[in-house]
């Protein structure tokens, strides 16, 4: 078997045995259960007209998915940051690296294994939450698969960044930096939204630059776009509030932006591979 796949398999097996997946599944099921009750109340509330309920349910779903995107980002950072530094400190990697394999294969295997776990979690969360919402309220996002893909991509981006940090800095530093960077990226997006709302060029620039430096917020907005029904977009356009809501996306991401995101992945992954390759063990 290819060494990369061997390491990926090892990474997944260890995560499963660590009961990491079990813990995530358990907490997710609880949250989705609570959300099922909330969406049921919301969609059958007597204080809302059916039109208001049709707008409130997608907005609430976007808020819930924002929470899950945070969980995904946090878990991506948490599982990737110890993968190199911690195993070097403990000595586990010192038994693997001298084998007749390339260090790049070790790192790619780790990335592949962790990304597979993340994809499984993102897919599971989306399927559960979208299913439950559809069941209790009848609302189905316009493109649930694309929304899920962008949520996963957001987590994978942080995973890749945390892996790069893990090749050089201790586990806690890598984890903290990963989460902080995610927060900063989201905040830059909010600042950009404020800039658009109040027509402040400098703030708008912060948002735009932030989306390129760390595309997590851009990907999150892509996910939002595919969660919004046409009625919600029409409502925002009618109200003229399209620029002022951080949980609203005006349009799908451009091909140029998606190309940049691919480049970003490539650059950070290449930096991680080069960093690990050059590191003295």
């Amino acid at each position, binding site marked *: 078997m290819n*060494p990369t796949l061997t390491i990926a398999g090892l990474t997944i097996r260890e995560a499963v045995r660590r009961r990491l997946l079990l813990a995530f599944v358990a907490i997710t099921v609880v949250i989705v259960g609570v959300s099922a009750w909330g969406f049921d109340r919301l969609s059958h509330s007597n204080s809302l007209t059916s039109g208001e309920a049709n707008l409130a349910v997608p907005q609430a779903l976007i808020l819930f998915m924002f929470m899950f995107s945070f969980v995904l980002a946090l878990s991506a950072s948490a599982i990737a940051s110890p993968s190199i530094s911690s195993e070097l400190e403990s000595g586990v990697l010192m*038994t*693997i*690296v*001298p084998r*007749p394999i*390339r260090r790049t294969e070790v790192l790619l295997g780790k990335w592949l294994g962790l990304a597979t776990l993340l994809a499984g979690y993102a897919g599971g969360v989306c399927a559960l939450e979208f299913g439950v919402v559809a069941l209790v309220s009848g609302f189905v996002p316009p493109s649930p698969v694309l929304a899920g893909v962008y949520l996963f991509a957001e987590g994978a981006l942080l995973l890749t960044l945390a892996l790069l940090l893990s090749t050089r800095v201790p586990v806690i530093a890598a984890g903290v930096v990963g989460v902080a960077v995610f927060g900063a990226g989201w905040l830059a997006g909010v600042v950009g939204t404020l800039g658009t709302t109040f027509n402040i060029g400098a703030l708008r620039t912060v948002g735009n630059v932030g989306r390129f430096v760390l595309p997590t917020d851009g990907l999150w907005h892509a996910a939002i776009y595919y969660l919004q029904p046409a009625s919600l977009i029409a409502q925002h356009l009618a109200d003229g509030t399209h620029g002022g809501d951080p949980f609203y996306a005006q349009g799908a991401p451009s091909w140029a932006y998606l190309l940049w995101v691919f480049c970003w992945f490539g650059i950070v992954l290449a930096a991680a591979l080069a960093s690990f390759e050059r590191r003295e063990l």
Partner: protein
Amino acid sequence: MWQTNSADPAAVGVDSRQAVGGGVGRSVTVHPVLADGSPHAAMSPAIHAVGLSKRFGDTVAVDSLSITVQRGEVFGFLGPNGAGKTTMVKLLLGLARPTGGEALVLGAPLGDREARRQIGYLPELFRYQPLLTAREVLRLHCRLLALPKQTWRQEEHSALQTVDLVARGDDRVGTFSKGMQQRLGLGVALLGSPALVVLDEPTSALDPVGRHDVREIIRGLRERGSTVFLNTHLLQEAEHVCDRVAVIDKGRTVVTGSLAELLGRHGRVRLKVGGLGEGSWSGLDGFGHWHRDGEWTVVEGIDRSRIAELVGELVSRGGQIEAVIPEHQSLEARFLELLRER
């Protein structure tokens, strides 16, 4: 399954042909990169380092170190803590890059992937996947070594048997004591019958029984023709199993040679001989300096190769030989002497 050799270091097979870096000069650069099993690769020394150096900022960990380890020998790499032994091992395995000098391992440049296929390594800082069983760890390394799948089971069993872990093979490594993990590490290092086995402080976590077992394993490796590079600060270990040793301190070689060379040809012999009067001992001063120690006669400074001749002479004079105990300076004493001389 392992054969036991004599514990007397003087009786251990000695190869004194290799001088440190002898005659290699810069010729190391023209060695072909051969780890492909070709005749040239097979003939090259297991390790051939010339002027290898490693600096960490202003700190010199390895300072222009030259060694040659022949194939099939057990080579002890000795030195006090912080002497640069582990750094040297990391350089040889390609885990760290030298800042000077050159080296070939199994005829290939440092870190060569194909050469690493032929190297078994037990690191000083060892830890194996705690959530895997011992068998799964061994299987993982069989995969990483790209051993044929049909051999995995046999390799696993053989490794577990050698390190006496068959009964714990299906237990998770996380439940193992440190000593058991070190045994497992030794088993991992033996997978695929490597041509070179690098053991970095292989008995640091072992009890006396474990240490004895490791010595037996090393002897077994020599029997089957593997080269062993034993990095240790436990001199007794080296004294028991090594053909040749290098003593290093502060990153530099202090001395290299066979144990006989290191400990000197001259030693001491204690004799218990009956049937001889005081006058019968005259004319034997050429063997060394005599003195009495109770019922023992002690000859100091005797050439160890002449002990048999001395015994023959005493028998010819009517002596009844009850005991002959050759004594030599211990490696530990010699080691301390060498370090003090620096």
